[in-house]
């Protein structure tokens, strides 16, 4: 996995590069938009991390330029400004995610992984959450070499959670994902299937209940 970092602040740039390397990414650091463009067109990257406040040509302009020229590499924007305008502008211009400085290194790495995974998932029908691998086309979940034996409803719930990785999925939404299989489902049917799923997943991934809101699937904490 190769990541290009465009960040003009040496302290931040160095930290991001080190963080990525320690998380076993290959990382290149450039400090301006021109160098970033040169790098993107010379090599292939799985992800770009772009600071909005680059000198001369801003990160927003850089991303817009790349999108106009057909570069679809996923982009994570970094900014020191809060407020919605920047976020909206960044996402409108074709950035895929957005983080406000200061950030936690662990979260940065998690977002990078998620972006790369999402980009790959669009291309193929397979994606993974930690040790858990899902093949959407074959409706198959595997942990390591073992294929999990899941019922249709369990698979539907797992798929629904996995598609919204990192986000809370409401009980209603999970209900409707399995509603086609049976006419009359009681609300705690979801709870029953989730607890069965948890048992089958073991330590491969965590399904966390959020009181009053729903469920969220996460990678098992390291």
């Amino acid at each position, binding site marked *: 996995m190769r990541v290009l970092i465009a960040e003009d602040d040496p302290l*931040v740039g160095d930290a991001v590069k080190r963080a990525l390397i320690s998380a076993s990414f290959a990382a290149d650091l450039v400090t301006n938009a021109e160098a970033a463009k040169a790098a993107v067109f010379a090599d292939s990257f799985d992800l770009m991390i772009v600071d909005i406040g680059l000198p001369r040509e801003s990160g927003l302009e850089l991303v817009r330029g790349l999108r106009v020229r057909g570069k679809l590499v996923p982009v994570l924007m970094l900014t020191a*400004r809060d*407020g*919605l305008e920047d976020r909206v502008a960044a996402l409108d211009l074709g950035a895929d995610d957005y983080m406000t*400085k200061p950030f936690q290194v662990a979260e940065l790495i998690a977002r990078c992984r998620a972006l790369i995974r999402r980009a790959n998932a669009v291309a193929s029908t397979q994606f993974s959450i930690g040790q858990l691998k899902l093949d959407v086309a074959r409706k198959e979940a595997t942990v390591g070499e073992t294929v999990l034996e899941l019922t249709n409803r369990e698979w539907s719930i797992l798929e629904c959670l996995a598609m919204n990785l990192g986000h809370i999925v409401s009980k209603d939404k999970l209900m409707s994902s399995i509603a086609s299989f049976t006419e009359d489902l009681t609300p705690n049917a979801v709870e029953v299937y989730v607890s069965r799923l948890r048992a089958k997943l073991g330590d491969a991934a965590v399904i966390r209940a959020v009181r009053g809101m729903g469920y*969220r699937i996460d990678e098992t904490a390291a």
Partner: protein
Amino acid sequence: MRPPPDQVPGIRKRLLGLLILPALVILIAGTVLDYVTSINPVDEAYDQQLVDGALAIAGHVRADPAGGATLELPNDAVSILRADSYDTVYFHVASLDGRFIAGDAGLPESRDAGSNPSRGTGEYRGAPIRMVTYRTNIAGAGPVAVTMAETLHKRALTRTRTLTRELATDLVQLLAVGVILWFGVRLALEPLGQVREQIARRSARALEPLPLESVPVEIRSIVEALNRLFATVRESSVAQRGFLESAAHQLRTPLAGIQAQLELMAADEPDVVRRERVLLILEGARRLTHTTQQLLTLARSDEATNLRWGFAEVDLAQTAEGVVADRLAAADLVGVDLGAQLKSARFSGVEWLLTEALGNLVNNAIAHTPAGGTVTVISGMAGGAPYLEVLDTGVGIPVEEREQVLERFYRASNARGMGTGLGLAIVMEVAQLHGAKVTIDAGPESLGTVVRMQFKAPGRPPAAVAELATGEMS
């Protein structure tokens, strides 16, 4: 700010006073003048009748053989001369030396020698009279004085009638003028009232210029001066915004670098003692970051209030969902069960500020709730108005401190952790910007704390609402 209304008389009062008083004086003077000018000709006409009578009688005075004079007038003619529906008419003919010739004996004569016939007033038989005396020379009899007189009833009656008519007319005129002035002044001052209304309806912190189209020339310069002031404040607000953007950038970028570097150093450091130190520095850097973030948010929400930007439709349920998802890890870390009961609550607001405010409430709740406790974020509509609540089973805030904790830098006596004392101040700022009311109470069964942000029902102009909410908070 406003002077008590009774100290300086209003423009309307002044105008009415200045117009109605002179109008009253002019009308009264007019009445008097009318009365005088209409009475004189009447008196004149009545006098003329007396003159005519006197002349007619004089025409019938003849010299008598004795060398005196005598009146040769048949009784019928005398009756005609005396005929009058209101007054008693008298006449008297005498020689100049006072010898009685004919008529009513003892009737006084007008002694005015300046004119002939001469006029005068007198009294006869106990009643005031008007009289005319005509002196003439009768051939063969010498000079005689013919006096014609009448009582004053008819004249008095005419005066009364004239006066009454004049007064009635003038009263009607006065009323008409009064009504016209009153309505006129009212109408003329209408634009002033409109400007006053416009200013009254604005929020105390609104800075957009007042429209000049309907402003009368006389106060245009005042409104223009106000607008210039608004513009200046607005410009400085915009400058402030620019400064804050740049300050945010200048502060956050190095903080981000320091924090990330320290995190990496801590992870890489094999020496336990050194790692402890790095972690201590990291904790300090995080606190610094947190305080910076809080101060920037406060400053920016101030300025958002001034400029009123960033308002869009928000759903508190979605905002709350984001905040809860974001804080789950922090809650897990201290063993607090963070959950929610979210119902959609839409209105116009500034999403990122609401997120900051709710984030602060949830942070506080988690920090002050012991392991095993719960923190619940609630959103919904109460009576058509959106609300947001954060309910915890934590240590609670002492009743007497519940007002104070909303102030900047105040920390409750039982506050835990390394707070800046700015969290609830941010909540207050954001609440004021949205016209919301913040209340702090104990939770159910007097356990923990429930902080509620009660927003106004959507549809009302936020400016008016903001003014209500800015009230007596600090």
